[in-house]
């Protein structure tokens, strides 16, 4: 009985040791990040009526997931033949980034994944002139400045890569779903900070971030290598088959 127990214990140790030897250890740097968006100022250079400034901070919870807070300011002016519109205010988005890269690929330097955000926007919007024409003639009116609050959610896939030590850049596509734009069903905001076209239930945008990374902890991540498929010896199977 004693001998059987010793054999059994040895077998467990052997299995444990062999599985440990099949694992890789990755020293993964968890980081704090602070970034600024250069897409907004870039667009402003070509369109002086649309200023969007935003930045973010994020905190790695693990090698796969980071908490994110983004904040920004927007000043939007738009005119066309039948109305003049302005909207300005601040917004914030809170959520998480999920890294889809394996730790041994990512190494804390590369990120390709998806972000999920809840956004809230506080803004003033004003339609200083609008014109409506029909059979009876033309009517010109205006809508005074009004404070409003908008809510939305975002799915944000993207990539980031380290270009210098602790500095990275990358882009994020923002797929946004409007929860509420403020203003009721008749006077939805034409455009509002953080979301964009308030007349649409869904919108898309892009951010291009320059990021400063601050490593705060090294985490040891044990990763299992991909199982190698054993080659099947088809010829031997065939031989066996023929033999039968």
């Amino acid at each position: 009985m004693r001998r059987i127990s010793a054999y059994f214990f040895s077998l467990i140790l052997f299995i444990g040791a062999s599985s440990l030897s099949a694992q890789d250890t990755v020293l993964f740097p968890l980081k704090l990040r602070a970034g600024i968006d250069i897409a907004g100022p870039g667009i402003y250079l070509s369109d002086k009526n649309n200023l969007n400034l935003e930045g973010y901070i994020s905190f790695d919870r693990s090698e796969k997931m980071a908490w994110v807070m983004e904040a920004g300011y927007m000043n939007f002016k738009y005119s066309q033949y039948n109305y003049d519109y302005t909207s300005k205010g601040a917004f914030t988005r809170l959520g998480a980034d999920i890294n889809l890269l394996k730790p041994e690929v990512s190494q804390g330097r590369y990120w390709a994944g998806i972000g999920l955000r809840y956004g809230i926007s506080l803004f003033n919007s004003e339609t200083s002139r609008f014109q409506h024409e029909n059979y009876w003639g033309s009517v010109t009116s205006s809508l005074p400045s009004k404070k409003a609050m908008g809510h939305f959610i975002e799915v944000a896939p993207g990539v980031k890569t380290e270009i210098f030590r602790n500095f990275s850049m990358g882009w994020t596509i923002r797929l946004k779903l409007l929860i509420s734009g403020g203003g009721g069903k008749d006077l939805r905001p034409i455009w509002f900070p953080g979301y964009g076209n308030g007349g649409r239930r869904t919108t898309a945008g892009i951010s291009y971030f320059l990021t400063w990374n601050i490593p705060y902890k090294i985490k040891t991540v044990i990763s299992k290598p991909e199982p190698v498929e054993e080659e099947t010896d088809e010829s031997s199977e065939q031989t066996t088959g023929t033999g039968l």
Partner: protein
Amino acid sequence: MKKAGFSLFALVAAGFSLLLISCAPEACFEETNAYLKATFYSNTTKEKKTPDSLTVTGVGKTDKIYDREPSVQPALLPLDASNDTSEFIIRINGIADTIQFIYSSYPHLISKECGYTFYHRLDTFNTAKEIFYIYRSSNNITTANEENIRIFF
């Protein structure tokens, strides 16, 4: 590992190129007028009936909205957003009456591309000679395809 880094760098560069592509302004393809929609019915059968000839003119206007037009069903009557009443002379198959609509107007955003329009809430209506019987279906006069009144002739 280097391959992954290079791929990501290429993706980052692709994103930057995407950023440089500017968006073209979009055109307005939506209905921008909120019409009062009047459907025609037979006074005898109470069934839907299209007039053989319809002429509609706004009181005080020289232009006609419909000029002896056949096959109009429903008629789309534009309301004056700068007033709370609009009057129309309606001639159906050669018989004419004047109908006055009393309503309130309020602005409504159609879209960024189209801008604003006025919606109306129908309060009441009157006919001068009471030749046509009018039934109210809905008070909300919007760009939606919703019947507002039925004219029995």
